[in-house]
């Protein structure tokens, strides 16, 4: 006998249970709903088809990331941070590694610095492709979805050649990268970027001036720059309001200061602007990757620092010092000096920050992730209230909430 559903406790307490106006109804959307684009629950008060107010609940994908971090070595956390934003896992890797490197006072090798920048932009393309493809599919644009996801799959396969995994790569290392590029990788990268230009061009042709698309996207989910900043929005959502705020430009990290790129902005912060800003950012990322392919210097991909970099396998098997070094790094972890640091990268969805506290030794005292998706969920009601029930789907899609990052 299964338990009757009515006896199960409600995991949430909605902010309102009574309608505010006569004739309004309260409906529950999610957390498992074909149109919610992630495990999110929205309690909405409707007057007819119009949304009067919403109460957004997240946490259905919470898995105690920060608690788990406190009982593993600094290195062992890299696979965990991969699973925050699983559409662009490499950006998480690099943001986390950089925070630890700042505490340890490590400067990357030139090749690692440029490679990280290149791979971060490559990941950003994959993330934006996913977001736009899913958002378009939810509006019924299946062809555009297939075009974009085709390219995304090329990217995943291509990254699997490099890292051994399609989605969660565990490729960053404190002090560098797991391994260097395989033979012919850059050549294939150029081919994929060229194909991507063709396919994104077709998507532009299919939807940019499409009446149905414009009617669903233009003037829907509008947010002003002042509201966006007040509610902590960053990334493409903030830029869609017309504010050219991008950490890659404003507080450059990795190799961004040496690259030529623009920060695309929108006009009024509606769904159409968010779509267009992401499409333009894909172009800018491709432009950056092409520059980086030319600039990529030769040399090692890891710093020569025995505190964090594993010794060469050949040496581990032949000399006692390297064997002990390897052993200490695995058993005790990299020795990070006491201190605290907040390090922020421009993730695909906005500011991805890591606040880490070390008391010395191989295990963190605290790792806190400032995830853009979680902050966006705190203000997303500003974009949902006042529009139609059906508008929740494209608006939510254009914010690109990633459950792994939002709920941690």
């Amino acid at each position, binding site marked *: 006998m299964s338990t009757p559903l009515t006896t*199960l*406790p*409600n*995991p*949430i*307490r909605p*902010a309102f249970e009574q309608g505010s106006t006569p004739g309004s109804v309260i409906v529950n959307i999610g957390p498992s709903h074909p149109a919610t684009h992630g495990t999110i629950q929205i309690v909405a008060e409707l007057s007819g088809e119009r949304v009067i107010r919403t109460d957004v*609940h*997240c*946490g259905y994908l*919470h898995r*105690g990331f*920060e*608690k*788990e971090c*406190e*009982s593993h070595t600094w290195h062992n956390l890299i696979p965990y941070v991969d699973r925050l934003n699983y559409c662009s896992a490499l950006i998480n890797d690099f943001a986390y590694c950089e925070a630890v490197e*700042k505490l340890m006072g490590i400067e990357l090798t030139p090749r690692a610095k440029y490679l990280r920048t290149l791979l971060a932009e490559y990941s950003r393309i994959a993330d934006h492709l996913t977001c736009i493809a899913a958002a378009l599919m939810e509006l019924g644009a299946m062809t555009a979805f297939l075009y974009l996801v085709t390219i995304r799959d090329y990217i995943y396969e291509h990254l699997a050649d490099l890292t051994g995994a399609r989605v969660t790569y565990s490729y960053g290392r404190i002090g560098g990268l797991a391994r260097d590029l395989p033979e012919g990788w850059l050549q294939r990268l150029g081919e994929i970027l060229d194909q991507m230009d063709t396919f994104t061009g077709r998507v532009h042709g299919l939807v940019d001036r499409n009446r149905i698309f414009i009617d669903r996207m233009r003037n829907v989910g509008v947010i002003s720059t002042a*509201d966006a*900043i*007040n*509610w*902590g929005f*960053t990334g493409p959502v903030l830029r869609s309001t017309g*504010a050219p*705020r991008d950490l890659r430009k*404003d*507080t450059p990290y990795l190799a961004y200061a040496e690259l030529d790129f623009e920060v695309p902005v929108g006009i009024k912060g509606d769904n159409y602007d968010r779509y267009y800003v992401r499409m333009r950012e894909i172009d800018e990322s491709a432009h950056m990757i092409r520059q980086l392919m030319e600039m990529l210097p030769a040399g090692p991909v890891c710093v020569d620092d025995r505190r964090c970099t594993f010794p060469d396998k050949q040496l581990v098997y032949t000399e006692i010092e390297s064997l002990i070094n390897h052993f200490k790094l695995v058993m005790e972890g990299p020795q990070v000096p006491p*201190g*605290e*640091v*907040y*390090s*922020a990268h421009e993730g695909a969805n906005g*500011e991805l*920050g890591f*606040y880490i*506290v070390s008391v010395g030794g191989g295990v963190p*005292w*605290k790792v*806190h992730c*400032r995830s853009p998706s*979680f*902050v966006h*969920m*705190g*203000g997303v009601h500003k974009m949902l209230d006042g529009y139609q029930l059906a508008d929740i789907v494209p608006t939510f899609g254009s914010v690109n909430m990633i459950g792994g990052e939002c*709920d*941690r």
Partner: protein
Amino acid sequence: MSGLPFEQVLEQLGPVAQEAAVAHGVLGFLIEPARLLEVVHTLKDPFAFDMFVDVTAVDWPEREPRFDVVWHFYSTRHFARVRIKTRVPLADPTVDTLVPFYGSARFMERECHEMYGIRFRGNDDLRPILLYEGFEGHPLRRDYPKQKEQPLVPYRDVKP
């Protein structure tokens, strides 16, 4: 990165800001809990720290007062970051809410409240956000056992 208003901020705040230091590009200082609103007011206007980036806590079980509450702010005009820290005891882990200044504080204070038990005076919506209604304890405190289970839906008895 020139023209960061760090010196002016410290000059304006005077002795309110203790242990001030710039590390890794972030100005960090310690304040008394009672001075929070006044300090944040100064940061937001005139210094244009208009973005509330983050609030979290750090648990030091051996220390009294036990918790650090840590805020991060960012200025979209100066591209500068400030970290404010304050210390609150286990007996009364209360600080003022920043919701009147920054809308984004709402969700992040809810998370800090459920994870560490920090109370934000004036925030009328401290419902659980990542956890569920009725969850007991504060899981990010160091004395909360990692393996502890609190299933909302009871485990089913499976007969062999």
